[in-house]
């Protein structure tokens, strides 16, 4: 086990937390050893996106970020996205579309899509692809992930203006959904 020499404090999925760490520890390693194992290791090189978390609302590779860089910031992981009883709309659509094959890339996809939906107002295909480009999948050919995402986005766009506004407000407070 990593011997810790420092501490780092940040808001994790809406709760203020303090963890022991070391200056050379990556955020991914810290999250996983603290039980937030939905965030996956895929490459350690910032290229596959399996470790995507939200840092102050921006999709970020947790494998490249040092844990101590999260000091005072707001981190959200896949554990904040949904539960068995209450999965997020995108998670529901992914399941319905048959988009989850091995599933290893999916938590990262969900986090990138969350950043997209909370940040962008115009959800044209090119913008969507820009947000999702950093999340690799080798199983699905992206077809069904795309179908699920497009459905989710179109539903969000069609929804009354109130809802997205409320969502972004709560995310500014700490990302509790």
């Amino acid at each position, binding site marked *: 086990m990593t011997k810790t020499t420092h501490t780092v404090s940040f808001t994790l999925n809406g709760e203020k937390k303090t963890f022991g760490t070391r200056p050379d520890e990556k955020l991914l390693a810290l999250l996983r050893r603290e039980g937030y194992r939905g965030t996956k290791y895929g490459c350690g*090189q910032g290229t596959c996106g399996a470790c995507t978390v939200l840092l102050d609302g921006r999709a970020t590779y947790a494998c490249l970020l040092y844990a101590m860089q999260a000091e005072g910031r707001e981190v959200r992981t896949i554990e904040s996205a949904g539960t068995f009883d209450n999965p997020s709309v995108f998670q529901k659509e992914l399941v319905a579309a048959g988009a989850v094959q*091995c599933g290893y890339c999916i938590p990262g996809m969900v986090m990138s899509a969350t950043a997209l939906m909370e940040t962008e107002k115009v959800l044209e295909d090119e913008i969507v692809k820009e947000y999702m480009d950093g999340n690799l999948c080798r199983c699905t050919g*992206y*077809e069904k992930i795309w179908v699920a995402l497009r459905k989710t986005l179109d539903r969000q766009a069609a929804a009354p203006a109130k809802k997205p506004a409320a969502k972004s407000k709560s995310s500014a407070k700490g990302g509790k959904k």
Partner: protein
Amino acid sequence: MNRHEKAKNFKQVNHSVTKIDALQLALGKDSYVADFVPNDALIVKMLWSPHAHARIKKLDVSKAEKMPGVKAVLWYGNVPRIAHCTAGQGFPEPSPYDTFMFDKKVRFVGDRVAAVAAETEEQALAALEVIKVEYELLKPVFTLDEAMAPGAPVIHDEAEAHVPIPIPYEPKKNLVAHVACEAGSFEKGLKEADFTFDQTFETPYAQHCPIEPYTSLAQIAPSGRIHITTSTQVPFHCRRIVAKTLDVPVQKIRVVKPRIGGGFGCKQEVLLDDVTAMFALRTGRACLWQFNREETFRTGRTRHPFRIRLKAGVKKDGTITAIDMEAINNTGAYGGHGLTVVSCAGSKVLPLYHCENIKFDGKSYYTNLPVGGAYRGFGATQAFFAMESLMDQMAEAIGMDPMKFRQINHIREGEGSPIFAALGEGREGTPMTVGSNALAECIVQGAEAIGWEKRRDWRGKTGRYRRGIGMACLMQGSSIPDIDMGAASIKINDDGSFNLLVGATDLGTGSDTVLAQIAAEELETATAKMIVYSSDTDLTPFDVGAYASSTTYLSGEAVRKAAADAKRQILATGAEMLGLPVDQVFCEDSAVRSKDDKHKVTYGDIAKYSLYQKNQYQIMGTASHITKKSPPPFAAHYAEIEVDTWTGFIKVLNYVSTIDCGTAVNPALAEGQTEGGTLNGISYALTEEYLFDEKGRMQNASFADYHIYSMRDRPPLKTILVPSYEETGPFGAKSVSEICINGAAPVFANALYNATGARLREFPLTPEKVLKAIQAVEVKK
């Protein structure tokens, strides 16, 4: 009624039932090997060979052993030296035993030298730094020509290297395997031809790139047994191989496969588990080894590069009179799948077209490069590139539309091929006639979807951007006949739910769901009633594992038979409860009903009765399945591309992937398999390759430098499932997973020719290569 119309009446099968683990995975719940690692697990790190070919003169680990946090070091001096094969195949394997846990010789950049288990990753890495190695550099072998040359350096000069079955193996000549056959007379056929061809094709290295890297966790259970949790496609082979390599009884080992983050063949190999198990034995601690991405590229398994010389003759009327395929693969430093992959280059390709005179010669050679393994498509991918490229050229020579040329020549229902009988895996094959075959329909539907009628000869095309349309036809198999075995057991619970235990290995494909549907269909219940568990060598019945397109077809039939066994018991108990003879009752909608439909008992009632009330017993079915057939799925692929003749860049405008997989047990999952495999094929055809420096080191071992397609790269892709009904498969099903990766390379090569007149006999079709080829055409003009 067409036979496949039957499938429309199924209640569970042929429905896109929700994949049973999908939500669990989408929520990010603990699922994969690395999610189950105790926090105090030791971390394993390996010192890899920096040299392609060298003898270790001196290896000193004494300093490393004393480093902080280090609990054990493994090297050739302190482990058993047992020749084995890392490929997860049937037993005895049709492959050389040419691998040791550690050896005094290293045979490629990325070969094992010594391993450390330490409290932390940093400590393990620090310990590797102080291991002292003196190498005697040997002349490396990097190409097939170098490997075959008389007097070539011998890569496996160890005395122990041998094959466990009588097949050709000459390590002194770097020859891993040789298989040959002839049906009719190639020479005679060639004389009958109006046009003859003799061309050589080359295919590149590639890696599977599952997003989850290889991961293995070994622990010592309180009973003292070794408990391995690993990302494997072959848990039972893993148990057998680890037992052999460590020289411990099979009984002492338990292998558990949790959810797997993709495999595509690369996890059909035991590359980590001997080391983690040995460390666990030495330290008594949980030991985790996870490859990083670079290791996955360098040391993980790859797709064998091939050189294929194809000779053929064709008559003006379109009759193919002779085909001779000489296929040679580079299996790299170890020979695990060398023979079987080269055999499949013949056996999965040559039967596709009518021809009375067929010759095949397949060889596999060692080199000092990364190791070839099983990769979706398994030799057929490489050989179809050659075959389908040549099909277009033959069609052009006789002035026939290439689609029509394929239509008049492809194998039909009820027909056989001498190749089926001649080419097996390490032995003769199994004679077979093709049952279900909807290739004709695949060709028609694909042509319509791509707009084949607008295809024009390249000679009329001008301007910077030129469009072309290409096609290819494909087949594969469904399991290895007479060798592969799958088994399943199923038991009822109090509430009428069932535990379905299968050795079949869901590696992310959705096979657990497909098998649950098959069981539910047979048992006349709902798929949601199935609790599926796969795979655990202590708890689930044997299965060879997830390879050779076998799970749906082979393991699926085992599941159907086990379910039928349980159903017989349910009917008997139900009849007893209703006070009726068994022939007066039937199963429907999770209940046993009287034939007059006046009385029923539900499966929950039957379970409670049989478990608690009277004549108690466990309703439980079990079955195994082997097959004499390996029914091919068929496919026709099409693409329209736009070639930038200034840069050589190929833009894929549309891709159409049709497939006849028999009954699609789960159409959404079958589409998913086809879409994923097709895009992997597209990525392989256009961008993926290993780049080596002059010392045999891979230069692009990252996703930054080895590009696999992202969501933005994805071209418009249309998937068409064309139904047929395979009488020998569970509810008409045959395989779906592998075939779809074979199409893109020949389709694009043919489309490139159709756009520009440039014919490339190697890929990936990178802009550099395409531009050069176009320029050569322009010069000729």
